[in-house]
């Protein structure tokens, strides 16, 4: 590499870093700065250093607000996320296993239906009607069912694609030894499917944790808030306390940030493979 070329390439690096940082880091810095301000300062919406640093007391105030509603929201969100993701993984892996191994007409019909599930938006009031009829409207369980229904297609597509790379000879050997379907699935398939399962877990977890629309419709009422709904209700309750609203943003962004630091590779892989062969 010549000196000129080296300088040229450094120049591209520097320029891209500056532009992308301004566009993509500044909004997050703004969140952080506003969350540390006093109510009066935050209401100015200025991008400035807080005159007094109140981040931790603001966070504490948000956590204590309304009889510790934030804690209830975190509990509900955790229940929702863990419950949904568990079911998505098992139901999705069961389906993807038979779908890929048989590859018959039923499997192609099933995969067409899964594709429709990725595209078609939820029918809001008829879903409420169905939940009410089953007596699970306004319950976390009911919401879990809806989230599972809407995330299953993604899981099935990712898992089925990966299933193709697990050699059939492995199942056949076990079958010759007289293993039952469940045994084949749990002792052979599931462990080998693990990399794809991690991808499904991480991507669905982030998606469901961040979901706003489905909880808004199917889990209304202040007893049942999820963390995303707290943002929505704080928007009206904290109308003059932007510092607290942004402190709430800081708090609820921490879990996905942690996921991102540990699982970035799986998330990117999941979102691209799931997408490209969708």
């Amino acid at each position, binding site marked *: 590499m010549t000196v000129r070329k080296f300088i040229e390439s450094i120049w591209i690096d520097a320029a891209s870093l500056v532009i992308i940082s301004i566009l993509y880091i500044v*909004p997050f810095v703004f969140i952080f700065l506003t969350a540390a301000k006093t109510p009066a300062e935050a209401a100015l919406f200025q991008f400035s250093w807080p005159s007094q640093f109140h981040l931790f007391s603001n966070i504490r105030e948000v956590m204590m607000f309304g009889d510790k509603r934030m804690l209830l929201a975190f509990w509900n969100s955790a229940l929702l996320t863990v419950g949904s993701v568990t079911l998505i993984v098992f139901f999705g892996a069961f*389906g993807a296993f038979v779908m890929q191994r048989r590859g018959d007409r039923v499997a192609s019909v099933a995969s067409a239906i899964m594709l429709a599930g990725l595209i078609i938006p939820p*029918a809001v*009031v*008829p879903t409420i009607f169905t939940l009410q009829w089953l007596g699970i409207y306004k319950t976390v369980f009911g919401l879990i069912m809806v989230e599972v229904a809407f995330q299953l297609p993604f899981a099935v597509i990712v898992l089925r694609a990966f299933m193709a790379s697990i050699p059939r000879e492995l199942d056949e050997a076990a079958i010759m030894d007289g293993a039952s379907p469940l045994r084949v699935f749990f002792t052979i398939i599931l462990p080998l499917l693990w990399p794809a399962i991690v991808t499904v877990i991480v991507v669905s977890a982030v998606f469901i944790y961040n979901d706003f*629309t489905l909880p808004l419709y199917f889990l209304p009422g202040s007893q049942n808030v999820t963390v*995303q709904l707290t*943002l929505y209700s704080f928007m009206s309750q904290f109308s003059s306390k932007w510092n607290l609203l942004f402190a709430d943003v800081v708090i609820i962004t921490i879990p996905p940030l942690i996921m991102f630091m540990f699982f970035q590779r799986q998330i990117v892989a999941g979102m691209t493979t799931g997408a490209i062969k969708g």
Partner: protein
Amino acid sequence: MTSNMQSRAVLRTYPYWFYLPAAIVFGVFFLVPTGLSFYFSLTRWSLFDATFIGFDNYITFLEDPMLMSGLRNTVIYAVLTMGLKVIIALPLAMLLTSIIRLKGLLRSILFFPTLVSTIAIGITFAALMQPSAGLINTVLGSLGLPQPDWLGNPRLALYSVALVDVWRGIGIATVIFIAGISSIPQDYFEVARLEGGTWVKFRHVILPLCRNATFTVILLAFIGGLRSFDLIWAMTRGGPGFASDVLTSVIFKEYQAGFYGLSTAGNVVLFILVTIIIYPLMRFFNRMEIEL
């Protein structure tokens, strides 16, 4: 053991009842409500009783300027966000697959907003777009540029929200393009390098050979755009007036007002819109797909 018996033993290992858990949940909570929506959209509905009124809800839809502008805005929003995501993310992906040293870091920075709550992003940008003291207008003002009221101007609000949507979606689009470009065999780039510069590489290698990734980005962005709700709701609630209402926000407003039949008709309109746009597009893309 004969091979016939053997293959039957193998098939028994892949029993249809493995579909059951997924089929029940998907059937009850997705297929049934979707099917019901066609019927209930033809009724005046209070959840407890439904009166059949034929196509009245759809006629209301066609005659109400607010509902129709919601339909138009949905299409504008989806086309605009999809187009901008493709136009911006493809060159970015080229940049991030070239020799640039910081590509890992830059890719992470671009991708992170994908994982942040849409409502949080909406709140943040509503503050940044605040007309007098907001950061965006402060910067524009100091450069001597006009300072629009991003979310308060009815002619601008929808586009302002669309820009934030693009900001958020660039990361995932770029990552898909990067996967597409990385799957192109290196030889093609060699030839392009000998034949000419970056333009040749873009026009004759990346554009045709990363077609599958382009199709994916278009489809994902289009579906997302047509169904988009949270960001619009967090930033403008469809306002000012009805200026930035889209079908999903209309569905929500009608639901809140207790017009369940009308809300469901909105759902069916969205269903039809998504299907008539996405399904032919998918068929077309499938035919055009290339194997590398």
